[in-house]
C-alpha cells in the first residue's frame, strides 16, 4: 500500500489554479479515457474556448460563472505516492472554502499570475496557510507564456513574495515558473525557459515530505466517548478516542485532564483484529481501565510522567474569522477544541491584522475574513497545548449559533494552573456538574469493608463532605454507631454478626431508596455476609475494599483497640483472633498503604460517579 498526501492549490482568483491542476492531470496521464475529449466536445458545442480548468469544474453552476466556488478534490498517483489534489477557490468571498480545502493538506501549491504579480489574496492565502499550519509551500509563477517567459519577471515576483512570506515565517520550498495552459514545467520540463533548471511541479510533488509523525510527542487522546454497550453480555467500559500524538499501551499510568483523574490502562480494545502493542498518533483507539474513574467526552487522556497540557479558562489566541456577523466582545460563543465544547467570550481584541499587507488596527470586533489577536475566557476549564508544541491540542474553532464561524491557535495560557490533581479537583468541589446531574436522585449503597483502622471512616467522611458540598444527598451508616442504637441488642457471635449485617443492609437500602448516596462503614469480615448485603440491596451496590495490613492497622490503632486485643481484653477481634476474608471481587480496592487519603477519596468519588453513570444508563 502506497503512502498518500493531500496537496492544496491556493492563490488569487483567476491566477490559474484549476488550469494548473487540470494540466497536471492531463499531462501525468491521470484522466479517465475520453474525459478530455468530452470536455473539449462540450466546449465546442457551447462555442467557448477549451480550458484545462473545465476538467475540474464539474459543477454546472461553476462552469457558468467560471470560478471555483468550493473545493474540489481529485485523485492521482505517481510511483512514489497517491495524491489528493484539493483545488481551493481564490475569490475572497469563498475564503471559508479555501480554509476548508487547505486545512486538509500537508503541502500547498500557491499560484501567482506572472502578468498580474502578487495580489491581495496571494498574500492573504499565504498568511492563512501559516495559520493553518501548512509548512510546505511551493510557489508556482503561472502564465509565464504571457510575459514572454521572462526570467526578470519571475525573479521580481519571487523576491517580492519571498520577502512577504519571510515576515510570516514561511520559507517556501521552491519557486517554479510554469504555464498551465501551455504545459511548461508542469509534468515536463519547459524548453521555453532554459534559465530554469529546478524541479517541475510533478517532481516537486514527490519532493514534498510526508507529514512527520506526532508519535514522539507526549500522549494526547481526546475522549470521544465512554462506551458501555451491554448487548450480548458485553461488560467492557471503554474509553474511546483518536490518539492525536504520542502513543498508549496497556499498563500505562494515564491522567485525564482537565479533571486530573488518574488510572491505569488495562487492555487496548479493537474489534475483529489482533490486539495491538500500542495505539499511536493518528489511530482510532480505545481502552479499558484498571481502576474505574468517571470521565467524559472533552477530557484528554495524557500519560503520567510526560509533559502535561495546561488547564485553564483564559487564553491568548490568534483567531481568523469567517462568520457573516462580526466576532464581538460580550457575546457568548462556543469553543470546540479536541472533543471539548465550552462556552466562550472575547475578553479583549488586542489587534486586528490585515492579512494582505500585515498592517494592523485596534478595534473591538473582528470582521469576516480578518485575523486578530484576542484574549478569550471560557466558562469551564479545558486542557490545551500552545501553538508550536502540539498542533491538535493548540487549535480550536469558534461556533456562532449553529455554524463554525472561526478558528484559532492558542499562543499563551493567561492563567495557568501548575498541574496538580488535588488543586483542580478540590477547587471544583470534587464533583463535576455532569457527575452531579447523574448522581441526583440515584441513591446507592457504597459498602466499605476492611479491618479496623484501615481508613474506612476517614475516607467516608471526606467523601460525604464532598458530595454534600456539591448538593448530592449523602449519609454515612457507621457500623460502630449502629451497634449503639439499632443493633444494640446484638453481640459478636457468628449469628449476631450476620444479623448485624442484615439489619445494616436493610437500613442502607431504605436510605438509598430515598435517593441518598449511602456509605456503609463496617468491618464486615465475611464474604458470605457481604454477598447477603449485595443481594438485599440489588444493583445500586458497590463493594469497596479498604485495604491495609493488620500490622499497619495495629500501628495506626486510632481507638486503641488493637492494644486491648493483643492484651486479650477484647475477644473475637477481626484480624487478631477472628478471621478477615479478603473480598474476592470488590468493585474497587482502596489501598491506604499505597495511596494517600486524598487519592483514596478521589478514587471513591470516581467509583460512585461510575456507578451513577451505570444506573443512569439503565434507566
Amino acid at each position, binding site marked *: 500500500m502506497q503512502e498518500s498526501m493531500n496537496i492544496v492549490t491556493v492563490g488569487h482568483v483567476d491566477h490559474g489554479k484549476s488550469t494548473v491542476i487540470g494540466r497536471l492531470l492531463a499531462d501525468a496521464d491521470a484522466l479517465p479515457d*475520453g474525459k478530455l475529449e468530452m470536455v473539449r466536445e462540450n466546449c465546442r458545442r457551447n462555442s467557448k474556448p477549451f480550458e484545462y480548468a473545465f476538467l475540474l469544474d464539474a459543477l454546472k453552476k461553476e462552469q457558468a460563472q467560471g470560478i471555483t466556488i468550493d473545493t474540489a478534490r481529485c485523485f492521482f498517483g505517481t510511483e512514489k505516492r497517491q495524491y489528493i489534489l484539493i483545488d481551493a477557490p481564490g475569490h475572497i468571498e469563498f475564503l471559508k472554502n479555501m480554509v476548508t480545502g487547505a486545512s486538509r493538506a500537508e503541502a500547498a501549491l500557491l499560484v501567482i499570475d506572472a502578468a498580474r504579480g502578487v495580489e491581495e489574496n496571494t498574500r492573504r492565502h499565504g498568511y492563512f496557510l501559516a495559520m493553518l499550519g501548512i509548512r510546505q509551500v511551493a510557489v508556482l509563477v503561472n502564465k509565464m507564456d504571457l510575459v514572454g517567459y521572462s526570467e526578470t519577471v519571475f525573479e521580481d515576483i519571487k523576491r517580492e513574495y519571498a520577502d512577504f512570506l519571510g515576515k510570516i515565517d514561511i520559507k517556501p520550498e521552491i519557486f517554479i515558473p510554469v504555464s498551465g495552459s501551455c504545459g511548461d514545467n508542469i509534468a515536463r520540463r519547459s524548453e521555453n525557459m532554459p534559465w530554469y533548471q529546478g524541479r517541475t511541479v510533478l517532481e516537486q510533488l514527490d519532493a514534498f515530505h510526508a507529514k512527520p509523525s506526532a508519535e514522539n510527542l507526549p500522549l494526547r487522546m481526546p475522549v470521544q466517548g465512554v462506551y458501555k454497550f451491554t448487548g450480548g453480555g458485553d461488560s467492557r467500559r471503554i474509553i474511546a478516542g483518536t490518539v492525536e500524538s504520542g502513543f498508549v499501551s496497556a499498563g500505562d499510568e494515564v491522567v485525564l485532564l482537565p479533571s486530573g483523574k488518574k488510572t491505569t490502562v488495562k487492555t487496548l480494545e479493537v474489534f475483529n483484529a489482533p490486539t495491538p502493542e500500542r495505539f499511536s498518533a493518528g489511530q482510532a483507539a480505545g481502552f479499558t481501565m484498571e481502576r474505574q474513574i468517571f470521565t467524559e467526552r472533552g477530557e484528554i487522556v495524557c500519560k503520567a510522567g510526560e509533559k502535561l497540557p495546561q488547564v485553564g479558562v483564559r487564553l491568548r489566541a490568534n483567531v481568523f474569522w469567517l462568520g457573516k456577523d462580526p466576532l464581538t466582545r460580550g457575546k457568548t460563543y462556543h469553543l470546540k477544541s479536541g472533543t471539548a465544547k465550552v462556552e466562550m467570550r472575547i475578553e479583549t481584541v488586542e489587534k486586528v491584522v490585515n492579512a494582505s499587507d500585515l498592517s494592523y488596527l485596534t478595534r473591538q470586533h473582528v470582521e469576516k475574513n480578518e485575523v486578530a489577536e484576542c484574549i478569550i475566557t471560557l466558562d469551564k476549564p479545558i486542557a490545551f497545548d500552545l501553538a508550536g508544541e502540539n498542533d491538535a491540542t493548540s487549535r480550536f474553532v469558534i461556533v456562532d449559533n449553529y455554524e463554525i464561524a472561526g478558528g484559532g491557535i492558542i499562543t499563551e495560557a493567561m492563567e495557568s494552573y501548575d498541574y496538580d490533581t488535588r488543586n483542580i479537583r478540590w477547587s471544583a468541589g470534587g464533583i463535576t456538574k455532569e457527575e452531579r446531574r447523574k448522581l441526583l436522585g440515584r441513591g446507592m449503597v457504597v459498602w466499605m469493608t476492611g479491618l479496623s483502622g484501615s481508613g474506612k471512616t476517614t475516607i467516608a467522611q471526606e467523601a460525604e463532605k464532598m458530595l454534600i458540598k456539591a448538593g448530592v444527598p449523602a449519609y454515612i451508616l457507621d457500623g460502630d454507631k449502629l451497634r449503639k442504637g439499632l443493633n444494640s441488642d446484638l453481640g459478636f457471635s457468628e449469628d449476631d454478626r450476620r444479623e448485624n449485617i442484615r439489619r445494616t443492609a436493610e437500613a442502607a437500602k431504605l436510605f438509598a431508596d430515598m435517593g441518598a448516596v449511602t456509605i456503609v462503614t463496617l468491618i464486615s469480615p465475611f464474604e458470605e455476609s457481604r454477598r447477603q448485603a449485595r443481594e438485599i440491596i440489588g444493583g445500586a451496590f458497590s463493594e469497596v475494599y479498604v485495604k491495609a495490613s493488620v500490622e499497619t492497622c495495629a500501628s495506626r490503632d486510632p481507638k486503641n483497640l488493637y492494644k486491648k486485643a493483643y492484651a486479650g481484653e477484647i475477644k473475637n477481634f477481626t484480624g487478631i483472633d477472628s478471621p478477615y476474608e479478603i473480598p474476592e471481587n470488590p468493585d474497587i480496592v482502596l489501598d491506604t498503604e499505597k495511596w494517600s487519603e486524598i487519592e483514596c477519596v478521589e478514587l471513591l468519588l470516581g467509583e460512585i460517579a461510575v456507578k451513577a453513570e451505570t444506573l443512569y444508563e439503565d434507566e
Partner: protein
Amino acid sequence: MDHLDELESKSVHILREAYAAFENLCMLWSIGKDSTVLLWLARKAFYGHIPFPLVHIDTHYKIPEMIEYRDRLAKEYGLYMIYGENKEALDNKQTYPDGAVSRVECCRKLKTEALTNTLNGTWPRYRMNLETGEYEIDKNTAMYTGVIVGARADEEGSRSKERYFSPRDKNNDWDLDDQPPEFWNQFKTDFAPKTHVRIHPLLDWTELNVWEYIEREKIPTVSLYYNQGDGTRYRSLGCAPCTKPIKSNSRTPAEIIEELKTGALSNIAERSGRAQDAEDGGGLETLRRDGYM
C-alpha cells in the same frame, strides 16, 4: 500505518463524533459495497455493537439477492434494521418500470421522496423483529437529525465538494454554494430545528480503497459484484430495471482490485452502468441537491 489504516481511523473518528453529537442518528445502508464497508467500520468504532438504526430505502425493484443479503446480515449482526418505501407511488404504479414516468422521476419518487419521508418520520418505518425476521412498524417516528451516508468524493463531480458533516435544510436541500467551513477535525454538529446533517465517513476513500478494504477485512458482500460464470458482474448496484452488469471475469475482491488497477476498468466511470445518471445530464447534481444519496 498504511493508507487503509489511515482511512479506517479517520472514518472511525468521524463515526464516533457523529454518535456523540446526534441523539437521533441513523445510517443509510444501500446494501452496496460502500455502505457495507461503512457498516463494518461502525462495528469497529463501537466494538461490535451498532448503537443506531440502519435505514434502507426499498424501491421494491432492487435485485432480490440484495434483500436476502440485507436480512441475513441484519439477523447475524443483531442490527436495528429499518426500511422505508414510497407506498403510494408503488400502489399507483407511478414508476419507470410501469411506464408511467421517466427514470429520473422514478428515482425521485421511489428513492428521494421515500428517503425524505422516512428520515423525517412522516411515512412508516418498518423495523426487523430479530426474533421472527419479520418487519413491523417501528414505534420511533422521531426525525433523524444525523444521517450517516457512504458517499465518496471520487464518485463524481458534485460529491468531490462534500463536507464530512454536511447540513441539509428543512426541505432536505443541500446548499452547495454556501457550505460551512470544516477544518482541523472539527465538524458541524450544531443545527437548527427541522434541519439535519449528513455525515460522510467515506469521503476520502476511492473505489479501489473500498475493494482493498473488503479484501483485507474479508467483509461479506453481495454476490452480484462477482462474475458467477457468465462473464458479467455488477460494479454498482441499484434497481434491476436501471442497472446493467459490466463485462468482467472478476470472481473475487482480489480480482476486482487487479481489474481496477490495470484492467479494462481503469478508465471507465464507476456508475457507467446506472442509467439515471446519463438522463440527469451526466451528473447526479440535480438528484443530489434534492437529497438523493
